């Protein structure tokens, strides 16, 4: 057999290190930690023509300083009730809204809860006739009210152009 030496070594050495790391592997970092944060941040384009809304323009650590939350409820306060259920319902509502109002929402979907009332707010594009809009509002309210067993209110604002919500270009 004409195996390289490292392979032979690996076969010989019993692996009793806790992380099952071979002993001949160097566990030492000589470079700095990157600490790169990417969530909720957007990359610059070479041309600088990527439109960002106000919400997108500020990174998540600006919440409560420059911008506010997208979900308003009391579940995560001290001694709040149903935090997990609220989060799951909010995620469901967001998914349902983006699917039902396909390519129409120009902003994030805001979910505000008061007692058992759920208000869903946001900015939509005037891309469909008002008749369809009214249908979608009724449809969404009815179905979500049936699923979540809560009164639902859709409070939407419409803008004629997609660029109306643009805050800056990067």
């Amino acid at each position: 057999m004409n195996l390289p030496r490292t392979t032979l070594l690996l076969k010989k050495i019993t692996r009793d290190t806790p992380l099952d790391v071979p002993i001949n592997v160097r566990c030492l970092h000589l470079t700095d930690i990157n600490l790169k944060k990417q969530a909720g941040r957007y990359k610059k384009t070479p041309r600088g023509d990527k439109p960002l809304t106000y919400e997108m323009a500020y990174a998540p650590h600006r919440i409560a300083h420059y911008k506010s939350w997208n979900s308003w409820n009391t579940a995560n306060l001290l001694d709040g009730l149903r935090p997990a259920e609220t989060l799951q319902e909010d995620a469901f509502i967001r998914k349902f809204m983006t699917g039902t109002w396909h390519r129409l929402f120009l902003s994030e979907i805001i979910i505000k809860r008061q007692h058992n009332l759920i208000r869903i707010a946001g900015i939509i594009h005037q891309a469909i006739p008002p008749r369809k809009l009214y249908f979608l509002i009724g449809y969404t309210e009815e179905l979500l009210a049936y699923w979540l067993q809560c009164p639902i209110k859709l409070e939407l604002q419409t803008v004629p152009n997609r660029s109306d919500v643009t805050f800056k270009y990067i």
Partner: protein
Amino acid sequence: MSTVVSSCYKKPVLFKFSKSFFSFDNIRKTTDLASKPGSDEDEFRTLDIRGGKTPQTYSRKKQPRVVFPPRTERMPVDQDWSNVWPGPRTFHPASVPLPLRQGINKLGASPGKVGNVELMKIPNFLHLTPPAIKKHCMALKKFCTPWPRALSTNENCQKYFPLELIQTDYCHSSPSIRNPLARIITIKFPLDKLHLDEHAKDKFLRLVGDRYDEETGIVTIVTDKCPLRKQNYDYALYLLTAVYYESWTFEHWEIEKSQPDLEYYDWDNSKCKENLIHLFKQANQNMEENNLLVERLKESIVALFDEVGTTDHKDLWPGDVVSLQTCDTCGSSDSLEGGQPHVATNHGFHGAAAGHP
């Protein structure tokens, strides 16, 4: 080659197709052509598929969508705002005639109200303007009754309704109105409102324990054992009743209560008073003559025993004892040292304490 005979005409019309394939569109075109007015009915009409004069296909023009201008432009200045914004609602720029801005822009002005999500996120109080609240109150007023005149002041309320009931309702943003903390009931009442004699009060305080606040004289009972508020309320009232009647009962073993079991310093039955009487008798003096001194001494000693650890009594009592001593010295000088070591020694406290450990 295939031939198709259309049966929707009086006379059969024969069409010739160069292809064996046709679709529904073809039929529509052919019927359009065939039903052209002014065509000769006697002859068979032939269809020219290869061009010629074809009618222009109808294309739908894209209608410009009618978008109404924002409502704010049509609002009169003297409108009733509570009709425009009657209840809580997410902000809408077309309904609010205010030049609002929200957000931070380092390069220019803050974003305006149109297409501004930040304004939609935050709770607004546009439905709670002072006129709206006034209107609301006026509407509710007809359901209100006047406040009882006898309860005009807080003191009167406390006098006629001494029992204070504290319960908490919780408002959540959740579909459930239940909160386990809402079951807790607290009742408070001043102890002197209860009809208790000396024995009953003593027993009541022993039963109640640290639920009695000595500074304010208020007894607080908190119940949270039952799952429902009503049950806890009933339980609290039951406890109050039970403790009250229990404190009035006199068990046979309560006769065995002696001086050390007392929760206060009983001056009248104390060894100290006995000694003092003896002292005065030896000095051939009447105790009533030195009433002021005796009172002061009594106060000092009672305070000394009742408020153990709360005040520094070292400065309090020797002065009184010394003044007693001087008074006695005026009458009979040797009677103090020989006759009454309990009070007259420098550590007269020990003598008194002998009667009340």
